[in-house]
């Protein structure tokens, strides 16, 4: 499904198709490694990008003519490096281009690398991933730059996934690369004391990719990319590094949540709530992998007496939901306890609402309502009122429940949710009418 960086040139019509496919495959699987190696030599991100584009165009011609090289990724790196150095030399002499590439030349960043063989391209991917997620870049730019540079997406693909236009994505990418050059964002690993915070930034990008894909069936492809990136980040960290626990936790989280994807929508595309989903459609392999990751992390944490972070706890919660073969088998007591721990590490209003729901299932509506009372500015959230309505109904406080359903429906962002909440309210009204015929429906 991924296309090469540029449209194939029609110079060799017979061979163009397999060559374009081969190039697309290399770009899809090895883009991070290739881009990292080119940036390491060229220094300037925009020059590296332009040089790599150029190398891809040349590959289409050259590979069609001479056949595939033994190491296509190495071929691209070597060609792009030469092209990049060439661009920089020319830029030094030309005013207009110097404006664009100048800062890197001036700063002497551009030490042309030793003439690399086609095999040794090294592994600079961690530097690449960390720089793409640098906190001095705006979040949207971090996401776009990661998709482009680490995962090899084209601006057109990014635009489709982020509901933007290709021109806007291009502009954002060019702007981000310019800031890297002008502000002096370094292409190096941060110091050990800065690494955890910086890895957090990378994990935030992974999580954002995932939640964006999860929220919209039309963009579900982002979930697979989040898994891919999450896997890569985890692999790049030392097994003993404390940051790796959270990276593993996040990978387990996206695997466990993503495992339900095939069961989340009915034939008409309507959302199916978790306890009504056909669990035979859940991806058991993904769940098993998530479980294995989580167990390793928890063992490590117990061993080193290190507290676990929010992604590990979220993964543990997701797995508690994902493991039982029937909804009735869900261990709500354990889920409520995990939510209590998560609230202490990284409590958000929405997370606390989920805790209240779990506490209600585990210990009854009153403890659930008690947790709900602690939600900061909950009155503004439809989820708060929906959870409150549900708990009040379970507690038999039906009039209050009806009011909460009404408030939730008012605030609900989507028609589907509004309709579902309205239905709950009507069902409640019928129940009121049955149990107390004099009560107002």
């Amino acid at each position: 499904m991924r296309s090469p960086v540029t449209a194939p040139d029609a110079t060799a019509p017979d061979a163009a198709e397999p060559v374009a496919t081969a190039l697309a495959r290399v770009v899809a699987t090895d883009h991070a490694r290739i881009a990292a190696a080119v940036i390491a030599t060229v220094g300037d991100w925009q020059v590296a990008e332009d040089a790599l584009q150029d190398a891809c165009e040349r590959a289409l011609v050259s590979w069609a003519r001479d056949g595939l090289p033994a190491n296509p990724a190495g071929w691209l790196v070597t060609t792009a490096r030469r092209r990049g150095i060439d661009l920089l030399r020319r830029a030094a002499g030309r005013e207009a281009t110097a404006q664009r590439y100048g800062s890197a030349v001036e700063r002497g960043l551009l030490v042309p690398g030793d003439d690399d063989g086609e095999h040794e391209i090294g592994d600079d991917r961690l530097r690449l991933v960390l720089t793409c997620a640098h906190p001095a870049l705006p979040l949207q730019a971090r996401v776009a730059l990661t998709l482009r540079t680490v995962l090899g997406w084209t601006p057109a693909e990014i635009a489709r996934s982020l509901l933007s236009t290709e021109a806007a994505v291009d502009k954002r990418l060019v702007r981000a690369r310019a800031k890297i050059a002008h502000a002096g964002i370094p292409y190096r690993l941060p110091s050990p004391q800065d690494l955890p915070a910086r890895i957090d930034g990378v994990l935030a990008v992974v999580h954002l990719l995932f939640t964006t894909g999860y929220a919209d069936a039309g963009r579900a492809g982002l979930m697979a990319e989040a898994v891919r990136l999450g896997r890569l980040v985890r692999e790049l960290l030392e097994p003993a590094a404390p940051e790796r626990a959270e990276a593993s936790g996040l990978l387990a989280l996206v695997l466990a949540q993503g495992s339900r994807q095939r069961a989340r929508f009915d034939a008409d595309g309507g959302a199916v709530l978790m306890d009504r989903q056909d669990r035979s459609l859940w991806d058991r392999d993904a769940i098993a992998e998530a479980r294995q990751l989580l167990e390793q992390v928890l063992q490590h944490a117990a061993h080193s007496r290190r507290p676990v972070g929010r992604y590990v706890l979220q993964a543990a919660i997701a797995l508690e939901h994902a493991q039982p073969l029937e909804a009735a088998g869900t261990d709500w007591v354990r889920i409520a306890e995990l939510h209590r721990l998560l609230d202490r590490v990284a409590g958000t209003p929405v997370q606390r609402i989920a805790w209240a729901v779990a506490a209600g299932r585990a210990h009854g509506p009153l403890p659930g309502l008690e947790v709900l009372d602690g939600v900061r500015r909950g009155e503004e959230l439809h989820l708060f009122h929906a959870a409150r309505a549900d708990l009040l109904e379970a507690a038999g406080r039906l009039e209050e429940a009806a009011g909460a359903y009404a408030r939730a429906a008012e605030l609900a962002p989507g028609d589907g949710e509004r309709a579902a909440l309205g239905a709950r309210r009507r069902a409640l009204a019928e129940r009121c009418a049955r149990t107390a015929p004099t009560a107002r429906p």
Partner: protein
Amino acid sequence: MQYVLFICTDPAGEPYDEASDDVETWFSGLQERGKHLAGDRLRPVEDATTVRVRGGERLVTDGPFAETREWIAGFDVVEAADLDEAVDIAAAHPMARFGRIEVRPVWPL
């Protein structure tokens, strides 16, 4: 690279505490390493004057160019290898806690 640190006030900053104002230590540490090129406090906005020339006419007004609750209280020009080092330097300044600091790369002519 050279960076200018704009030392700004910030109503949302931590309350000022003289005992933990270690700006002297910050300054002498940078000086020793040859990283501090220039810098000082600035008089408050009450003492600011804004100058414009429009159509050859000089307009001089009292006050800063932007009316905000935050204002620039000082500046420092520092030498740093890259943004990460400049950010480390800025983060060690006490006004990073009591206010906020904008880090801007110098763009040499």
